[in-house]
């Protein structure tokens, strides 16, 4: 049965061995994410937020439980299929931008299309189009070191969209940006979410993110503590801010 869910996790458990101790970073997470949703995962450091994020992104295999992306069980995929998934289905945005320093903005955005086997000219055309969308049409040939943090993150967003993914995974996308730039990045993500229908899953500490999220998932001690819907949010905002502060 085709579902409206784009990501589903079932009984997700991840254990790490530290010395002779076993630490359970995820302790049975069941999470369903709808197609086209803007979802924020919140939680203090060590809550298992990053582990969940890695599991959804196919960056790390869970100890048990499964992650389904478009109804595909990720545990069943071999290396080449996983690479295909990372290339085509998921776009990644990182806290530290992670542009390839030796390449220009355009080359960075074009790189995923190269991995996808797109002809060079088409890739360049696509790259220019995307950089225009994120408002960097004038800086195609700048190296990352010649761009500000906000601009680098815009390039990274353009890059994440290169192969038209259905999901964008953003790991603390505003974590290294100042307040104003962070707001701009969040607005850009929301705009892409609305206009292109791409599902956005974001791990964040940033309270500004809550305003644009459809749902907010709170992770505590490897479990989902609660899920807030956007429509219930306005009344709770005071409470959440307290929680956010406690979380730091």
């Amino acid at each position, binding site marked *: 049965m085709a579902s409206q869910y784009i990501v589903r996790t079932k009984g997700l458990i991840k254990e790490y061995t530290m010395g002779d101790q076993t630490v359970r970073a995820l302790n049975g997470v069941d999470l369903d994410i709808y197609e086209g949703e803007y979802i924020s995962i919140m939680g203090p450091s060590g809550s298992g937020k990053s582990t969940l994020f890695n599991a959804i992104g*196919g960056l790390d295999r869970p100890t048990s439980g499964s992650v389904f992306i478009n109804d595909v069980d990720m545990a069943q995929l071999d290396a080449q299929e996983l690479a*295909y998934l990372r290339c085509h289905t998921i776009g990644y945005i990182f806290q530290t931008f992670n542009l390839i320093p030796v390449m220009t903005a355009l080359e960075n955005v074009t790189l995923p299309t190269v991995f996808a086997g797109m002809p060079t000219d088409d890739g360049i055309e696509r790259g220019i189009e995307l950089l225009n969308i994120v408002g960097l049409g004038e800086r195609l040939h700048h190296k990352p070191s010649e761009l500000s943090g906000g601009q680098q993150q815009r390039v990274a967003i353009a890059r994440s969209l290169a192969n038209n993914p259905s999901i964008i995974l953003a790991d603390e996308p505003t*974590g290294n940006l100042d307040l104003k730039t962070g707001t701009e990045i969040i607005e850009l993500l929301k705009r892409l979410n609305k206009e292109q229908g791409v599902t956005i899953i974001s791990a964040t500490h940033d309270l500004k993110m809550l305003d644009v999220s459809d749902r907010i998932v709170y992770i505590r001690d490897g479990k989902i503590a609660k899920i807030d819907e956007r429509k219930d949010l306005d009344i709770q905002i005071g409470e959440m801010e307290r929680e956010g502060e406690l979380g730091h």
Partner: protein
Amino acid sequence: MSVDQAQRTHPRGSIGRQIQLPLKKAIEISFKSIKIRFWRSMITAMGIFLGIAFFSSVRMSGEFANIQRAYILQIKEDIEKGLRTPSIEDTRLIALLEENQEERQASENRMLWLSIMGLLVCTVGITNSMLMSVTERYKEIGTMKCLGALDSFIVKLFFIESTLLGFIASLLGFILGWMLISIINLFTQGVIAFGGNFWWASLKLMLLSVFIGTLLTFLATIFPAIRAAKMPPSAALRVEI
């Protein structure tokens, strides 16, 4: 907004397989990588450059000795056949040839042995710098994997980069060693040093030097390249620098 939403890349419930990238792309990326880290790359290459310079200078002095020997033997033969009246210089050269033949051969072998040891040390040095380069670039490697790079692509990237460096460094190293020894012999022996099979010997030595240098760099990169390929994509998410 004109981005085509027409086709999401694959139907639900199925997944494609990632394609292998053409070698041309890997070469292009490696080349850029060397260019941007030019001085650092040069330091990596310096080991093999100096090693090959040493090796080729030792071999080249051997070649010069051979040329000189052939030249003197020719004189000796001419004298014995009565085609030439021995001058004082000729007698001196012939005496020199017979005098320390064995000793010179031994010292030549020692030098060759030394230069080979030098090359082995350089190989370890290159492994070390390539390992550092992998550690330094863990984030870049992780990011590439997140963007869809296969392990084999990462391996290719590192091999191409180091082999290219090894090739250039050993070619330049040969030129340095060869030029130094040639200049020295020009002064000690004069133009006779460049007769005989000088050019042929130089060409053979050049091919040998470049082959050895490139091969050693290639071998030195096996371990670092595998380590880079095994880097998990989640390395891209690490925040500490």
